[in-house]
């Protein structure tokens, strides 16, 4: 089986697991998690070597990170079952110290600076630092402070991926700040190498990252669809938070199975 097909199968499994969990707890950020599935799958299953580090700066997709870490055997199934529950230790946003979690995130605009510090500590070592940001997160000034610092310090082992789903909590990111776009040119003007890709194509993500020059820090703008691939979730703001009811759940599972 080729790598692309394997990735597709894994991503189906991850989305179904998230939906399954949505039947016992609410406030899941399904939309923003679904837009990142192929990206985070690619980081964990295709890029990341043991010593490499991944920080989920868009911490609201924590459930996705837990599901993948569970699949990799880092988070135990019994702990995943207690997600958001009284006796559990996994909350909506990732906490430093939980298995496989390298930084506490949840407030946006923190991940990039922490990754910069980690990369500085490992300067000149063959160790790569992956960080996933949301496009809404780019409205935080701290992101641009860090983007500037990273390129000035030539921390070229940092790979920042932007989940460009064009939506934030209740509005289109393109409406809130139309001048944020095109994102790749912003990063480029801050001294980064950039590329754009289809954020739902594992191969496109993989190839764009692999083909980077390593002469600059690298930002990949991954075009995604919030809620992808479920028809009634795609680009619908309420799925930023909402957990599906039983009928919606079954419909979503069916759509994913038929992909």
């Amino acid at each position, binding site marked *: 089986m080729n790598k692309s097909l394997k990735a597709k199968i894994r991503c189906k499994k991850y989305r179904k697991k998230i939906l399954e969990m949505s039947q016992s707890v609410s406030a899941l950020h399904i939309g923003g998690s679904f837009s990142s599935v192929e990206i985070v799958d690619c980081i964990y299953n295709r890029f990341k070597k043991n010593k490499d580090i991944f920080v989920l700066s868009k911490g609201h997709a924590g459930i996705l990170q837990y599901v993948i870490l569970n699949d990799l055997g880092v988070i135990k199934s019994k702990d995943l079952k207690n997600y958001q529950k009284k006796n559990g230790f996994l909350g909506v946003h990732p906490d430093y110290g939980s298995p496989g979690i390298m930084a*506490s995130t949840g*407030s946006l605009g923190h991940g990039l600076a922490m990754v910069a510090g980690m990369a500085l*500590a490992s300067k000149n070592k063959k160790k790569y630092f992956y960080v996933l940001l949301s496009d809404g997160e780019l409205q935080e000034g701290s992101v641009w402070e860090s983007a500037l610092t990273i390129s000035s310090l030539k921390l070229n082992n940092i790979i920042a991926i932007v989940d460009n789903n064009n939506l934030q909590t209740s509005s289109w990111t393109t409406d809130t700040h139309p001048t944020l776009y095109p994102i790749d040119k912003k990063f480029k003007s801050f001294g980064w190498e950039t590329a754009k890709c289809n954020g739902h194509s594992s191969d496109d993500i993989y190839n764009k990252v692999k083909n980077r020059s390593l002469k600059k820090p690298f930002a990949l703008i991954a075009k995604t669809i919030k809620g992808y691939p479920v028809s009634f979730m795609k680009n619908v703001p309420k799925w930023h938070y909402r957990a599906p009811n039983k009928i919606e759940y079954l419909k979503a599972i069916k759509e994913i199975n038929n992909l």
Partner: protein
Amino acid sequence: MRNVFADELYKHAIKNKKIYILVSDISPAGNMVSFQKKYPYRFLNVGVSEQTMIGMCAGLSIEGMKPFAYTISTFALYRPFEMVRNDICYQNLPVTIVGMGAGTIYSTLGGTHLTQEDISIARSIPNMSIIAPCDPTELKDAINYCCTKSKSPVYLRIGKSGEKSFTKNCKNKWKFGKIRKISSGNDICFLTFGPIVKKAFDLKDNLKAQNISTEIYSCHTLKPFDYNGLRKIFKKFKLIVIIEDHSKIGGLNSIVKTHAYENRYNGKIISYSLKDEFIHCYGSQDDLLEKHNISNKKIYQNIIGKIK
């Protein structure tokens, strides 16, 4: 103090390659230039980017390094507050955040450059320790603690320049988390921290002329506070005078009075803290403090009135 900070940290950094210092657009003091030249990757000026400075210190610490963040206190603590809270304290990382020129030291720069409530803010963050050395000698001990022993976040509140050393020959050793007797006496007790300790020593001499004997303590560790030490002071003295370059809310005044109430202390406590007001005046630091009723003359008169 900033020169001593730079020189002392540099000494530690030569021995310990895990020590990093990230500064935010601040003029180099003491040996900072040598540090920067010798270890360009361990001395970084991130520019006017305090949020990144704190976030990077968290990242360095997660990777096992021993980072210091250094700038003027208001920019070290207030500007990047959420990074201090989430990245450093919530993750409980051994990062030292150095707030230089704290309190009313930058007396001509206006309220934007003063930190009259920094201890109050830092104290309320879980995991955060606060050290405010009274002179360059205590600062050396504090740096040694931060470099070699500290395993959690520290807010190190320091002065700027020209501070005299009062504790060079003090026989009581500096110890993290302990109130330190730095001058002995019998009648009244001064509790203080930071460079404003100078007032306590000036007053000690003045009061001596009136046959009033004064004991002075440096409460250099504001958190965790040495409540055992404080109870011993409650037992020994019927008049306690607090002098602090900080708001009456949340600093030494609050710490001592809350504990006095809980322990039914029946002596008198007089506090000289900053009012809960922004400072819109200029001049020397003493000029500013005087506007908030913190002057040697007022303290002296008040003590004489209380004793006689």
